[in-house]
């Protein structure tokens, strides 16, 4: 799959933003006043910024409001509804904390659930696609949720919880990579089943329908990304889990905390780039490629 910057920015930043909103909503002693303002400003900047980035690749962003209508079947529609509902509820919760110093726990918990729901529905946009076997597993949701919750804990300064979460996120990430590597073969699709000609012998693509790449090839066949995938996985894992964990174990300093957050975000961004670049769509089979 083509790793479009808009979707990488969207899933990385909004995952982090809704992760932070989740922790702010669950907090028993939530910040108030200026401190609350700072936290919510970061959370809203990340979540809203991510959502805005996701509209960049739309052919007709002016019609985006229509995307709230098909919640009965569409995970993308459900994600839009969850995100807007979470932002509205958390906006009210934040306003009460910032301007009135009032902590409405019930509003916070509702917003926390909606934030969690947003991360989950985002993961299902990809996890539902049988056409991309690497994504088509419930582990994709586990990965997105773990990374969102971990990033949020890190941003919220929950050092005690963030440390085990970082290790968990690293483990989930490695399991997701390893199972993903076997997913395409396990699905059983090859040029033989794609053309139905497999029973007659070995099928080979002899000529493409067109002389230069088209939308399908540009969008679904991305081979370049796989060349350095193992190195990138190592870089992502170190930045996402190892380095932040080490920094949290050192005596606390604000500089270390900031570096830990930035390192984690960079690691998740690399992981998201690989998420798209390594994913193979079955349509590539028709071109004798993957």
């Amino acid at each position: 799959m083509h790793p479009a910057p808009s979707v990488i920015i969207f899933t990385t930043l909004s995952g982090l933003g809704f992760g932070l909103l989740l922790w702010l909503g669950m907090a028993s002693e939530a910040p108030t006043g200026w401190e609350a303002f700072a936290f919510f400003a970061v959370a809203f900047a990340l979540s809203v910024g991510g959502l805005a980035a996701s509209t960049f690749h739309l052919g007709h962003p002016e019609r985006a409001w229509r995307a709230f209508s098909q919640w009965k079947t569409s995970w993308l529609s459900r994600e839009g509804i969850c995100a807007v509902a979470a932002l509205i509820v958390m906006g009210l919760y934040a306003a009460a904390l910032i301007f009135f110093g009032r902590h409405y726990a019930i509003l916070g918990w509702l917003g926390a659930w909606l934030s969690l729901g947003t991360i989950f529905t985002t993961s299902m946009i990809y996890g539902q696609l049988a056409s991309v076997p690497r994504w088509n597993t419930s582990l994709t949701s586990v990965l997105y949720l773990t990374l969102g919750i971990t990033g949020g804990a890190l941003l919220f300064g929950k050092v005690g919880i963030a440390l085990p979460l970082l290790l968990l996120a690293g483990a989930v990430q490695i399991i997701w990579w390893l199972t993903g590597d076997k997913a395409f073969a396990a699905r059983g699709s090859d040029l033989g089943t794609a053309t139905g000609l497999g029973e007659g012998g070995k099928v080979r693509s002899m000529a493409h329908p067109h002389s230069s790449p088209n939308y399908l090839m540009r969008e679904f066949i991305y081979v370049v990304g796989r060349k350095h995938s193992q190195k990138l996985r190592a870089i992502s894992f170190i930045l996402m889990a190892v380095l932040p964990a080490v920094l949290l174990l050192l005596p606390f300093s604000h500089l270390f905390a900031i570096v830990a957050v930035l390192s984690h975000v960079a690691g998740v961004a690399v992981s998201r780039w690989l998420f798209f670049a390594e994913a193979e769509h079955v349509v590539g089979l028709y071109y004798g490629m993957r």
Partner: protein
Amino acid sequence: MTQLPQSTERKLGLVIDLDTCVGCHACVISCKGWNTENYGAPLSDQNAYGADPSGTFLNRVHTYEVQAEGAAAQTVHFPKSCLHCDDAPCVTVCPTGASYKRQEDGIVLVNEDACIGCGLCAWACPYGARELDKAEGVMKKCTLCVDRIYNENLPEEDREPACVRTCPAGARHFGDFADPDSNVSRLTAKRGGMDLMPELGTKPTNKYLPPRPKDQLEQTDMLAPLLDIVAEDTNGFLGWLDQQLSRLPGDNKQRGK
């Protein structure tokens, strides 16, 4: 509305005969010709006369080589367009309701006025049947020529999809799969019509007829003596001519002796 109908009254679709298709791409051209000026936005081209031309097409012809163990390779031309699946994953993922499957005839369509061009339906389709038009920013796909098949302004023989109407080899057939006696149902039953990627559970309507097995070289050798030219009528002028010509050197049988 992106909920799939429980069942459709009719199941209109295509049978594509891989034994007959000659790979001429006439269906590709007639499809583009009809659909660029009828239903919805035109099918745009980018850099059409440059070094790297690209464009939106609803039907494309691949060419494959199939080789069984120890046998000669066989070339198969393979036209591919929307299969109008019963369980169409492209429809249910659509966030706006632009994609839908018609209850009356099973055709999968895009309402381009509601399409935001997010591309998720193209991601969900295993067959590459949907292409996002670069100029219009909306999703394009085969409509089964919905603006031809019911069009009473056209002569009756033209009320079938443009690709079927134009195919010079007769490799494409249009009909109703819900009717067990229709041309397409009978062809599918008789020739072992198959689904593409059945393991993905999309239940395609369109069916492909596999190429018939080709003759083997040994069989040709075995039949060769029977193909020898035998003059049955040895009387008259032609009989005399046959005898005289056979006496000349270079005759098949003489060489054999």
